[in-house]
């Protein structure tokens, strides 16, 4: 097979037996699952046995890229991993960016599958055909920045996935970072990599990626680039990155914390912190930040971030007061390979439990204050599993087992802490997806539909739905919510949002709003066909996405998940106090309070739109037959 866009090769690394082999991809599988996320699902369904311990040598990590990765296609640089996650026990995907997937393609591989467990700490290097498992004795115990810098010194500008001390110590929320910038693997990918005694993977290649139709690609690329280049908001996106879409200072201002709001303003970012803007390969909308503290505490600290908003958001913690503190805390979290969202959620939760008298120094064996030093202490205690940190390192589920009735107070779904708070942001697809995502309260696949169109007319929403390739018949149903005033049915819409996300991540395209907005099902299919020469239809891509998501669901049903786990947190139905204001759980347009009844109706509608059994939340036999998935369930 003369592959274009694809390499057609999968690299298999068995760490137990130190065996490296290459397997070939099958064109029929490619047509059914496309690549990246979709092919990862197919490989995981074939390789992962149900009910294994995620941190045992039986778990396997499947890393993939898409057929558009390695080319100049705008924003085609996604790296996707599927494995069984320790925080929730779910089989789920994680997406990262920066250069790992790009270099993997250039080295001649679409996927790399890592199985078994090394006897001693090792790292993996992939340099075209030269693949080696090397001794990592001197790297073990070092943080992610040190590890990545070591590998960059050794192989200039290679793609690096690395873990820090949290991953080594099997902290169940530990993540990996790609190129010390892009978070990779919320829910414990870092711990899985650590459980395999694998410190890092470095990849670099020079084989190149040929494509099928050069003339057509050139035409498509130049047309798309013209739109991107002259997009009126592009300059401000490049200047501010994600701070443009989430002005943290305004959030704090709304809370009445004006002094803190000034600490994370545009001015502070541009004048005092921004050191370099970096981009994923092929990205025309660069948004990654290299920050440098230039005055005050921690002067000289250089911190790589997927966006400045991540450290700035830490200022929403009552104990932090300056950007210096926020960046220092965030940098520590990154270096250890922890999850800033989970750490922030733990900190807020513990403070609340102290206030309510549930926790005391007897439980935590530490002096608890709502301040910076306590946060720093907490980060270290979790990363190194010291004292109370050891308990937290086992995650929310373990904490719920240790303290009676405490789970009702947690803002978690399936054992993962909530990312987007709907009482503040209202119930869009990104908030709703946290309930139905097999991984738990994760935000990725619900992106864009209720955000690009926010504040817009229903006609604008419809244009957006057409762009995503939502069938006309479904659009009518999406405009029929449980209460008319809600305007849109986020339950039904989330299904198509997930499918659109699956298409983008199977192709290897960035799903962030600022790139997502330039794509449509029609244009991604045109790029796909010009690159691969496979001439698939819009319907082929749409079906492949649905097939992949259903297969992911099936794997999780076998793990014991069902509708009972798609549960809205109790706390969402109570008012949220924010400064002097109080926010309620409301629909996307803010006209209706979401009750348990409406929430359940939205769940019913989501399952119905997916063709799943409403009671169990399982795919129906008819839908499985239609998708050719019977053999898996």
């Amino acid at each position: 097979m003369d592959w274009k866009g694809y390499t057609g090769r999968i690299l298999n690394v068995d760490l137990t037996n130190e065996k490296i082999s290459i397997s070939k991809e099958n064109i029929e599988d490619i047509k059914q699952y496309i690549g990246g996320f979709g092919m990862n699902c197919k490989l995981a369904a074939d390789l992962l046995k149900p009910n294994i311990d995620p941190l045992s040598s039986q778990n396997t990590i499947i890393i993939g890229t898409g057929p558009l990765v390695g080319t100049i296609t705008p924003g085609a640089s996604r790296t996707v991993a599927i494995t069984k996650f320790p925080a929730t026990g779910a089989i789920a995907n994680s997406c990262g960016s920066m250069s790992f997937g790009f270099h993997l393609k250039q080295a001649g591989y679409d996927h790399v599958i890592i199985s078994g467990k090394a006897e001693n700490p090792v790292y993996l290097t992939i340099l075209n055909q030269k693949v080696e498992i090397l001794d990592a004795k001197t790297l073990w115990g070092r943080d992610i920045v040190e590890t990545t810098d070591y590998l960059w010194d050794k192989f200039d500008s290679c793609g690096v996935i690395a873990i820090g001390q949290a991953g080594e110590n099997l902290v169940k929320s530990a993540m990996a970072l790609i190129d010390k910038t892009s978070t990779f693997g919320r829910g414990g990918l870092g711990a899985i990599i650590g459980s395999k005694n694998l410190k890092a993977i470095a990849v670099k290649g020079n084989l190149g990626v040929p494509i099928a139709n050069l003339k057509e690609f050139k035409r498509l690329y130049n047309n798309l680039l013209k739109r991107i280049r002259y997009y009126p908001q592009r300059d401000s996106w490049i200047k501010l990155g994600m701070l443009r879409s989430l002005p943290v200072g305004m959030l704090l201002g709304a809370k009445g914390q004006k002094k803190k709001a000034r600490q994370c303003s545009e001015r502070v970012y541009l004048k005092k912190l921004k050191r370099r803007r970096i981009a994923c390969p092929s990205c025309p909308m660069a948004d990654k930040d290299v920050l440098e503290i230039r005055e005050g505490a921690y002067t000289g600290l250089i911190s790589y971030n997927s966006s400045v908003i991540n450290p700035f958001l830490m200022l929403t913690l009552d104990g932090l007061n300056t950007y210096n503190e926020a960046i220092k805390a965030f940098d520590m979290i990154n270096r250890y390979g922890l999850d800033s969202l989970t750490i922030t959620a733990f900190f807020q939760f513990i403070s609340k439990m102290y206030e309510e008298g549930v926790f005391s120094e007897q439980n935590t064996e530490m002096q608890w204050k709502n301040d910076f030093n306590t946060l720093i202490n907490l980060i270290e205690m979790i990363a190194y599993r010291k004292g109370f940190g050891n308990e937290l390192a086992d995650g929310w589920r373990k904490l719920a087992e240790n303290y009676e009735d405490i789970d009702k107070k947690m803002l978690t779904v399936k054992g993962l802490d909530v990312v987007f708070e709907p009482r503040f942001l209202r119930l869009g697809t990104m908030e709703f997806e946290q309930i139905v995502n097999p991984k738990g309260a994760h935000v990725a696949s619900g992106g864009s539909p209720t955000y690009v169109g926010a504040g817009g007319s229903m006609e604008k929403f419809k244009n957006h739905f057409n762009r995503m390739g939502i069938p006309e018949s479904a659009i009518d149903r999406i405009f029929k919510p449980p209460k008319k005033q809600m305007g849109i049915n986020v339950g039904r819409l989330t299904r198509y949002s997930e499918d659109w996300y699956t298409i983008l991540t199977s192709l290897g395209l960035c799903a962030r709003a600022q790139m997502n907005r330039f794509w449509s099902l029609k244009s991604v299919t045109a790029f796909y066909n010009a690159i691969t020469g496979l001439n698939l239809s819009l319907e082929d891509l749409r079906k492949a996405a649905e097939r992949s998501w259903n297969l992911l669901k099936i794997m999780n049903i076998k793990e014991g998940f069902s509708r009972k786990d798609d549960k809205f947190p109790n706390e969402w139905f109570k008012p949220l106090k924010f400064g002097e204001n109080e926010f309620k759980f409301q629909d996307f347009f803010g006209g209706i309070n979401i009750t348990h009844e409406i929430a359940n109706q939205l769940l019913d509608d989501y399952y119905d739109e997916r063709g799943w059994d409403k009671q169990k939340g399982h795919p129906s036999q008819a839908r499985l037959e239609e998708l050719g998935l019977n053999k898996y369930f």
Partner: protein
Amino acid sequence: MTAEIIVNENNCTGCLICQLWCSFFHKQKFSPSEAYIQITNQYGLNPKISYLDGCTKCGQCAQHCLYDALRITMTEGK
């Protein structure tokens, strides 16, 4: 009039679009290592941009740079 490429490494984001386009334009595939323009220290604090022997200064890299790290200017003479 001749074309001159002005390099401003401070603006480079490491996106590699210049290398990708160069290899596509001259070698008909996406292969940064075969491009006549090379970016080193891609995500370090100080990236380096250099041109290899064989570069004809066709200006394609600068035409496709989206971050003003490469710009074409026309100069008098020769």
